[in-house]
C-alpha cells in the first residue's frame, strides 16, 4: 500500500469492489467501506478489523458522563450490537457533560433516550436498552443476551461506566463469574481511573476486587465532589479506545505481558498526566481467587 495517506485511501477504496448489499459477515458493503474508511485505512484495522467490530457486542452499564460518550463512539465506529443499562433519568445538572442529552430529555430514562439517539446517528447498530439497575439480582437477566452471543464465538465486552462503588463491585463479580472481559473507567473531581481485566485471556491481572476489596471506604463521586465535562470525556474516550483495541485484538497478550489487560491507569486532570501500574492478582481474592469446591459429601454429617 502507498505511504501517502490519500493515495492509500484511494487504493483501499478502489480495491474494494463489492455489491452494495449489506455486509454478509465476510465483506463490508461499499457504503460501509466509505463510512468507516478512516478506520479501515489503519493497517491495524483494515476490512477484517472493521468486520470484527461489526460482529462485536458491547454492554455499557451506566449512561452518564462516561457511558453516553462511549456509546456514541462505539456505535458510530461500527460496533454491531450495544446493550445499554441505566435506571436513572436525565437531569438538568447532567447536561454540561452528557452531551447526548438535551433539555427536552429531562425526566426520561437515560438508556431509552440514548437508544433513540443512537438509532439516529448509528442506524446499523442494534441497540437494546434496559431501564433497570444493574445488581446481583438483575445481572443474569441483563447479561443473558451477551452470554449467548459469546457462546457463538463472537467478541463481547462489558464497559463499567457507573457512578458508585457498590455497582462497580457487582459488575466486576458478574464479569468474573461469566468470564466476560471488562473495561472500567471512573472519574470524580480531577482524578480518573481506568483498567481492563479478562479472566480468560489474562488471569494474572486479577480483578477490581484485588485492587479495591468490597469493604473499601470510598468517598469520591461526581455528585458530591463535582467534575469538569472534558475530564469525563477524556476517561470515556480512553475507555472506548481500550475497548476498540481489545475488540480488534490489538493487545499483544501472552502469559506474562499485556499492553492493555491487567493494567491500571490513573489520570490527573490538573497536571494532565497519566500514570500506569501493573495489576497483580490477589491469591486470596474472594471474587477471582480459586474457589473451594464443596460437594454434598464435604458437609459434616450429623451424628
Amino acid at each position, binding site marked *: 500500500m502507498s505511504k501517502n495517506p490519500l493515495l492509500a485511501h484511494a487504493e483501499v477504496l478502489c480495491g474494494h469492489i463489492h455489491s452494495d448489499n449489506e455486509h454478509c459477515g465476510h465483506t463490508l458493503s461499499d457504503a460501509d467501506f466509505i463510512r468507516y474508511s478512516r478506520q479501515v485505512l489503519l493497517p491495524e484495522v483494515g476490512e477484517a478489523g472493521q468486520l470484527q467490530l461489526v460482529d462485536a457486542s458491547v454492554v455499557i452499564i451506566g449512561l452518564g458522563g462516561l457511558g453516553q460518550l462511549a456509546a456514541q463512539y462505539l456505535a458510530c465506529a461500527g460496533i454491531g450490537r450495544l446493550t445499554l443499562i441505566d435506571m436513572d433519568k436525565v437531569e438538568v445538572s447532567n447536561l454540561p457533560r452528557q452531551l447526548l442529552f438535551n433539555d427536552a430529555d429531562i425526566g426520561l430514562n437515560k438508556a431509552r433516550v440514548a437508544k433513540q439517539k443512537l438509532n439516529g446517528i448509528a442506524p446499523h447498530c442494534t441497540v437494546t436498552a434496559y431501564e433497570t439497575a444493574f445488581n446481583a439480582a438483575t445481572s443474569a437477566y441483563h447479561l443473558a443476551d451477551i452470554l449467548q452471543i459469546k457462546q457463538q464465538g463472537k467478541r463481547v465486552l462489558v464497559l463499567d461506566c457507573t*457512578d458508585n462503588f457498590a455497582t462497580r463491585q457487582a459488575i466486576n463479580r458478574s464479569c468474573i463469574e461469566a468470564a466476560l472481559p471488562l473495561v472500567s473507567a*471512573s472519574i*470524580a473531581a480531577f482524578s480518573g481511573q481506568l483498567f481492563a481485566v479478562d479472566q480468560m485471556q489474562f488471569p494474572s491481572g486479577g480483578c477490581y476486587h484485588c485492587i479495591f476489596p468490597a469493604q473499601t*471506604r*470510598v468517598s*469520591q463521586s461526581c455528585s458530591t465532589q463535582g467534575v469538569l465535562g472534558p475530564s469525563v470525556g477524556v476517561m470515556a474516550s480512553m475507555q472506548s479506545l481500550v475497548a476498540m483495541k481489545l475488540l480488534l485484538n490489538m493487545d499483544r497478550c501472552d502469559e506474562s505481558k499485556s499492553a492493555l489487560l491487567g493494567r491500571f491507569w*490513573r489520570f490527573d486532570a490538573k497536571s494532565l498526566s497519566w500514570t500506569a501500574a*501493573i495489576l497483580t492478582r490477589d*491469591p486470596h481474592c474472594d471474587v477471582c481467587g480459586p474457589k473451594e469446591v464443596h460437594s454434598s459429601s464435604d458437609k459434616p454429617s450429623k451424628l
Partner: protein
Amino acid sequence: MILIHINNVPQPLTEPTSLAAVILAQDIALDSVAIVLNAEVVPRNCWQSILCQHEDKLELFSAVAGG
C-alpha cells in the same frame, strides 16, 4: 537507614517497616487506599508481609467511583 518515596515525598525509615505500617504511620486507614509499589499494584492482603526496601516508590490513592 532506608529511604522510600511516598507519592514523590521522601520518607526515611529507621527500621524494617511493612507497607501496612507505613500507611498507618501516615494516619491513613488501611481500608481507604490502594498501593502501587514500584509501578505494581499490591493487593491489600500482602501489605503486612512486604517490607519496604531502600528507594522503593509508593503511590497511595483512593478508589474513584464516579462516572
